[in-house]
């Protein structure tokens, strides 16, 4: 029947609808009828009529056909033979335990990783805060002129905001403080959070024992009340509820414990602190009673009726009002900014977590591709089994039920393993994650995880059934004895899968290389001092025992003398701004006569021995003498500060004004990295250490060997002088510096581990596909060898057939890496995300891996005896 050349084809949409609605038993007939009738209407009437007819048919047929489909499925689910089929399925799995094991393990790893990733992302990005209605909690801050933000403000301002605001249900503030705990074993530093009135209402947090602060406790003289964090309570008191009403001695004052907080998923506001104290302005601290100072961080909770925009408008008006009312102190506080706390908390972790989730996803795809490969290859081996069963009277439906049951057993086992393993994975990830991951409490099964597991079970059952179903169908059609053309098509499909695996592996390998280069780049940065073999700890004597500056000074002198006398101690010193450990203070400075914007200059105050302990190099001039370090005339500056000096020319000998006095520069020291290896330090001024006043001091001690082994001796020497002064945060300085690149190292470890896994999986995939192809082409290879093909040519052909799809995939992977560089670059230091060498190395590595994986099957192919191969079929 010759149709006219321009004859329209039956509408695709109608056919598709019919095809999917119809059960297998009637599908061919329904489509055949549809096409024939369409043709008839087309010729007897018009194209339009035929199309209308087709649409009408499709729409009217969906419902009855679908009902028919369900009717056909029901007996399959309800009919007898379940036990037989289940036993058959079990035997089929037991016959090939290795295949079954590979499937279960691959799926289990894939699902566990997905579950863990889902759980981490859920906690860390979607719901990091366990507080009620967390989207209404906002951070507030003053905005200055020129859009400059001032994060902290005065308590007086916060009180005025609270009074003026209607859109906020609660406004409060906090500031951190460190206190010395005595009377409970060794004296220790406690990290306290001074929290304002309503802070608990802002968070919506409750006390699990005792109570929260009462308003009477925000009054002078009545403020010595403590609320313990859940973690501190567990750690310090072993979770004893009887702690309420007891007192703790902080900075030599008795504090009454009034409550214990419920656990928080994110320890807020700082990752680690122990107690809440009522925040009120202390009498002896002038800055706390002033309006122009910035010393507390405000937070608030939006009232349920208000939007962020409404609050913004209202608070801006309040800021304007305060500016008019207090022109002197509030001149630079032109507005109030606000942002959701959740957004602020996830801001830093988001890109890294998304990157890792993406990498995990890529590995999963590679793993599942392998699984499909294994099943397709194996299914072809099972073709005969299906054919025999069909010949013995099993119907297609029973075969389908059996393969379905096999899949369900495998997927069920994998899901079980995954659900058991996922919490451990989450914990391992947390342990490895450098910072405090938002959402610290984990390992309970959330609804999301439950649904993820259930979906995983369903999807993997279908996934496993699909390759088997294909083969059942092939077996049903041709009795399992031919079907070579279909296998060729399947082989081509597997080459595409190999290419996809290779692409993802190359992408991950490129990322691994650039992340590792970032870490090695950071590790090779000279910080400007020598942190190895140095012990650091905070040393702040109790203010009530050492009332005067002279007494404190004497204590430090004695402590240094005692420590230096210990065996194994090579040098010791005290400073207030030890790099990576503590901060001094800073001021803005401009070169005289210059109109440039002021540069922040860091200030340190040091004792004798400090520079020697840290081995900071002298660039010019000399170190101050011990006498100068007790005086008020000599300063050191670092190289970065030289350009800020009033006069050009040599720095040494110049006089600089600071704090109402004139100082002489006696020497210039090298610049040091202050708290990040990837950022150069600021210009800085090093004063004699008495200028530190009563600021917290940090002692540095250089020892022979591991500095931690000297801790008992050092602690004993200091406690012999005063047993109430804690040695706070004892650490190796080298550990602290290493910790500063932990985030980059974490990324590099995780991504390169995933990269290696992906590459190995890809190698397994190449091996499997090649081995299968070689086994199937045994006869063809035998013929070729018999006709004179050399074994080396055969070898080359087999390896090339494996390397070609891998190489094509590698090129695609390079493209993906090139595109991903846009997002990755921000996470790198001194490394180009599109580094040609990294790209080339990754691609080359993958092609080599693919070639190596294809070697064993190629050798097997070349070793066949042509006569045996020809006799085989």
């Amino acid at each position, binding site marked *: 029947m010759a149709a006219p050349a321009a004859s329209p084809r039956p509408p695709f949409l109608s056919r598709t609808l*019919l095809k999917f609605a119809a059960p297998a038993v*009637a599908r061919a*007939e329904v489509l*055949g009828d549809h096409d024939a*009738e369409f043709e008839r209407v087309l010729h007897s009437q018009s194209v339009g009529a035929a199309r209308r007819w087709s649409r009408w048919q499709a729409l*009217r047929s969906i419902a*009855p*056909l679908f009902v*028919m489909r369900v009717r056909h499925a029901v007996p399959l689910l309800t009919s007898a033979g379940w036990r037989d089929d289940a036993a058959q399925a079990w035997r089929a799995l037991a016959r090939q335990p290795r295949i079954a094991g590979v499937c279960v393990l691959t799926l289990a790893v894939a699902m566990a990783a997905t579950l863990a990733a889902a759980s981490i992302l859920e906690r860390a990005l979607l719901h990091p805060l366990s507080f009620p209605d967390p989207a209404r909690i906002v951070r507030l801050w003053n905005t200055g002129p020129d859009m400059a933000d001032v994060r902290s403000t005065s308590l007086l301002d916060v009180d005025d905001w609270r009074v003026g605001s209607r859109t906020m249900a609660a406004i409060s503030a906090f500031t951190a403080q460190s206190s010395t705990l005595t009377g409970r074993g060794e004296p220790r530093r406690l990290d306290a959070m001074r929290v304002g009135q309503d802070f608990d209402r802002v968070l919506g947090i409750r006390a699990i024992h005792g109570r929260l602060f009462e308003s009477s406790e925000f009054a002078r003289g009545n403020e010595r009340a403590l609320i313990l964090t859940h973690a501190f309570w567990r750690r310090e008191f072993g979770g004893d509820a009887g702690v309420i009403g007891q007192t703790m001695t902080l900075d030599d004052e008795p504090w009454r414990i009034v409550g214990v907080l419920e656990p928080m998923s994110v320890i807020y506001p700082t990752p680690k602190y122990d107690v809440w104290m009522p925040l009120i302005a202390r009498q002896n601290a002038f800055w706390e009673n002033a309006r122009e100072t910035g010393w507390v961080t405000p937070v608030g909770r939006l009232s349920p009726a208000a939007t962020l925009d409404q609050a913004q408008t209202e608070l801006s008006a309040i800021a304007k009002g305060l500016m008019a009312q207090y022109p002197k102190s509030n001149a630079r506080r032109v507005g109030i900014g606000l942002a959701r706390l959740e957004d602020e908390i996830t801001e830093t972790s988001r890109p890294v977590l998304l990157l890792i989730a993406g990498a995990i996803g890529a590995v999963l795809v590679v793993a599942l591709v392998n699984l499909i490969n294994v099943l397709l290859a194996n299914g072809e081996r099972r073709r005969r089994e299906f054919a025999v069963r069909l010949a013995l009277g099993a119907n297609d439906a029973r075969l389908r039920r059996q393969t379905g049951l096999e899949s369900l057993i495998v997927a069920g086992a994998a899901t079980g393993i995954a659900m058991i393993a996922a919490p451990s994975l989450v914990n391992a990830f947390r342990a490895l994650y450098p910072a405090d991951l938002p959402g610290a409490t984990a390992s309970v099964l959330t609804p999301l995880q439950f649904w993820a597991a259930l979906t995983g079970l369903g999807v993997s059952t279908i996934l496993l059934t699909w390759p088997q179903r294909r083969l059942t169908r092939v077996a049903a059609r041709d009795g399992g004895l031919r079907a070579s053309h279909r296998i060729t098509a399947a082989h081509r499909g597997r080459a595409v899968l190999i290419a996809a695996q290779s692409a993802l592996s190359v992408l991950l390998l490129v990322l691994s290389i650039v992340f590792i280069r970032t870490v090695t780049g950071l590790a090779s940065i000279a910080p400007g001092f020598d942190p190895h073999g140095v012990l650091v700890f905070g040393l702040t004597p109790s203010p009530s025992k050492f009332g005067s500056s002279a007494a404190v000074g004497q204590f430090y002198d004695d402590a240094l003398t005692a420590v230096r006398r210990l065996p194994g101690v090579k040098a010791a010193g005290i400073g207030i701004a030890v790099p990576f450990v503590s901060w001094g203070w800073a001021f803005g400075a401009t070169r005289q006569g210059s109109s440039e914007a002021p540069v922040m200059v860091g200030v340190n105050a040091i004792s004798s021995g400090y520079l020697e302990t840290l081995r900071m190099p002298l660039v010019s001039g000399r170190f101050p003498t011990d006498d100068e370090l007790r005086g008020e005339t000599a300063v050191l500056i670092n190289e970065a500060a030289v350009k800020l000096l009033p006069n050009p020319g040599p720095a040494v000998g110049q006089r600089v004004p600071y704090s109402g006095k004139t100082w002489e520069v006696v020497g210039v020291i090298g610049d040091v990295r202050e708290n990040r290896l990837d950022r150069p330090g600021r210009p800085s001024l090093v004063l004699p250490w008495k200028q530190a006043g009563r600021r917290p001091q940090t002692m540095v001690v250089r020892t022979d060997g591991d500095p931690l082994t000297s801790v008992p001796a050092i602690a004993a020497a200091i406690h012999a002088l005063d047993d109430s002064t804690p040695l706070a945060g004892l650490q190796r300085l080298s550990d602290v510096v290493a910790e500063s690149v932990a985030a980059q190292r974490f990324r590099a470890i995780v991504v390169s581990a995933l990269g290696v896994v992906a590459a190995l999986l890809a190698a397994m995939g190449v091996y499997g596909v090649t081995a299968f192809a070689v086994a199937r082409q045994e006869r063809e290879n035998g013929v070729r060898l018999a006709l004179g093909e050399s074994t080396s040519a055969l070898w080359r052909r087999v390896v090339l057939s494996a390397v070609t799809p891998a190489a094509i995939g590698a090129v695609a992977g390079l493209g993906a890496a090139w595109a991903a560089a846009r997002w990755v670059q921000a996470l790198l230091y001194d490394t180009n995300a599109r580094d040609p060498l990294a790209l080339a190395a990754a691609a080359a590595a993958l092609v080599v891996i693919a070639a190596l994986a294809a070697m064993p099957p190629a050798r097997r192919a070349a070793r066949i005896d042509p006569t045996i191969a020809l006799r085989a079929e």
Partner: protein
Amino acid sequence: MGRGGYLGEFEQIVLLAVARVERETYGMEIRREIEERTGRQVSIGAVYATLDRLEDKGFVEPRHDSSGGRARRFFVLTPAGADALEASRDIQARMWSGLKLKRAGRKS
């Protein structure tokens, strides 16, 4: 009456169409027969779904045949199918006997 019980209207029509052809027949032929006799367009899906139900009830019997090029199932009326059709007709006849319809709300 067969195990299927009472015949639905469309089931009856399809079964009658199978019976009218008086030989093995298939989906498209059945549908055309119905469309010609009733003057109504019938959906392919409805025909096959109904045939499927009738097969389950034992009123038609299928036979696979792929000799004619396209895979087709041919159907013949079974004795049970014939019984069911007659029973339906008898029930209808008994229900109709002596009945004169009066249309309420319509004058004359």
